């Protein structure tokens, strides 16, 4: 008797589960297609690297206030650049991407998700950028000034994992470019990175944002990061300050339209808006270096020009840099990092 009623109860529960499951599924689908066909609920999905949220928080409301942006909603996702790029490649529904480094866009070009002419505009698909900076505890107790200071005994450096983070690649490229004299003496650059990674890096945060949080929790003496991220945490009132070393590296953060977007017109309008003087000013206010030279001229105090600013072009462009330094199998920096951390 008892066992029979138990079975019945179990079956009832099972049927209920199945019914609920099916119901959920079909209503999801209906909702999805509805919003796809309905122009009134235009919602762009932005997938970006970890730190530009502070910029988009200003940009998106400003865009929505323009005639082109009226009624356009946004869903935003931020995370480690490489990880985000692989998610989009794997099928995450996305309209516009903003990554830390160009290879993360190239991955989508190779997958056919971004048109090959994505960087054909005047600014090569880069609406804003930054420089690599050194963040220290307030008052700079260790007296850190440049890249050599990071190799002093006992200095612990926080920088994210270059296999997931774009920030990490920029952070390692800056001293590499300095020590190798712009790539002319690669071995000198690699020797520096060997010591930096082998002796001074203990943690492997997954993104630039996570590295910041780790540093603010009290880990390490030095954080390598974007200048905009340094501005951001300083404005939050954290007990830190940043030093732009005399020789550093120009960070360029690309934005691209994903070509299977359901809203090509709105997405393109949004991307175009990023280059307008109005948006450029907002980027600058949020701590990012604008690419519009007239706007940049107004912010020279906030963004002082370093003595030497190496660029990815000086090292031969992302194509060769990524293959030679960061390729998972054969990249020399990847090998150094793997040896030190696996």
């Amino acid at each position, binding site marked *: 008797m*008892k*066992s029979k009623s*138990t*079975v019945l109860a*179990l*079956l009832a529960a*099972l049927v209920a589960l199945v019914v609920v499951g099916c119901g959920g599924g079909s209503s999801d689908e209906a909702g999805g297609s509805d919003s796809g066909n309905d122009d009134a609920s235009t919602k762009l999905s932005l997938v970006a690297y970890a730190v530009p949220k502070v910029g988009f928080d200003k940009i998106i409301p400003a865009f929505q206030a323009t005639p082109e942006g009226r009624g356009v909603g946004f869903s935003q996702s931020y995370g*480690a650049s*490489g*990880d985000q790029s*692989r998610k989009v490649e794997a099928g995450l529904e996305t309209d516009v991407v903003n990554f830390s480094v160009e290879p993360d866009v190239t991955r989508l070009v190779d997958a056919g998700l971004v048109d090959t002419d994505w960087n054909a505009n005047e600014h090569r698909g880069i609406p804003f950028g930054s420089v690599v900076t050194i963040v220290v505890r307030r008052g700079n107790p260790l007296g850190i000034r440049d890249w050599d200071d990071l190799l002093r005994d006992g200095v612990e450096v926080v920088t994210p*994992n270059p*296999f*997931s983070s774009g920030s990490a690649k920029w952070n390692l490229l800056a001293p590499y470019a300095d020590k190798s004299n712009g790539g002319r003496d690669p071995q000198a650059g690699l020797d520096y990175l060997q010591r930096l990674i082998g002796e001074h890096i*203990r*943690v*492997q945060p*997954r993104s630039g944002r996570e590295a910041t949080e*780790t540093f603010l*929790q*009290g*880990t390490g003496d030095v954080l390598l990061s974007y200048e905009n991220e340094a501005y951001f945490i300083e404005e939050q009132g954290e007990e830190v300050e940043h030093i732009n070393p005399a020789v550093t590296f120009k960070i360029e953060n690309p934005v691209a339209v994903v070509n299977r977007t359901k809203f090509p017109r709105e997405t393109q309008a949004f991307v175009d808006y990023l280059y307008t003087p109005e948006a450029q000013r907002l980027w600058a206010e949020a701590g990012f270096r604008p690419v519009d030279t007239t706007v940049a001229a107004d912010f020279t105090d906030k963004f002082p020009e370093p003595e030497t600013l190496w660029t990815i072009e000086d090292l031969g462009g992302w194509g060769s840099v990524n293959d030679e330094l960061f390729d*998972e199998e054969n990249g020399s920096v990847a090998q150094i990092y793997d040896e030190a*951390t*696996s």
Partner: protein
Amino acid sequence: MSTVVQARPESGARRRGRRARSYGGGVGPLGIGVATLWLSIIVLLPLAAVLAKSLEDGPAGLWDAITAPSARAALILTVAISAVVALINVVVGTLIAWVLVRDEFPGKGFVNALIDLPFALPTIVASIVLLSLYGPNSPVDIDLYATRPALVIALLFVTLPFVVRSVQPVLIEVDREAEQAAASLGAGNWTIFRRIVLPALVPALLGGAGLAFARAIGEFGSVVLIGGGIPRETEVASQYIAKQIEIDRPESAAAVSVALLIIAFVVLFALRLAASRTQRHERG
């Protein structure tokens, strides 16, 4: 006195009923079919997929991924910390269950309900709370951020209910008469606990410890913030796995997962075996 008299035939009847059910009143082919289908879809299929993924680079690749220095360090740390956590749970969990069953105090119902709360709290919230309490800005001036004690505390928090909840019902049913008889024969409290109560609790203790251990080795949310995730120091296996996924090495993530599954299975199986052996010993 009357309660004791009532309790005995009841428990005897239940035992007989259970035995009868396991021989006769099965749920029939339909029930077995549903159970098998359910287990296959919910448990076996995903586990098989993990195993398949981990073998994408062949058995050698699987072995290399597990024995990579930081993977090995994470696995050893995870197992060691989880064993410590399970042991602490056995002692403290028994004590808590004892207090809840045998002692009367105001607010007992409230405390009893409190035990299960770690199940309900999202573990990442536990991690944030622990971080604000035992982190760099600790109000009680204890900074355990990125240390192994922090891992132990986080895991103790999420595994608290297992031993308590498996020991409690057994303790309620333990035959008080035997204890009273032992006491009247001059046995001290410790002797009574060791010789009369503990043997009855052993299967439940082993079961609870096994569950706590299994939960601890797979735990992610509660340790992810307070643990700091420093490779080879405080990075537990689940964090290592998450990192491998983020840096696009799913095979390595699957390999370490398989190692965790095997460890959990072996431990749970061994404990179950030990529990059934002590039970048989008890009956005989």
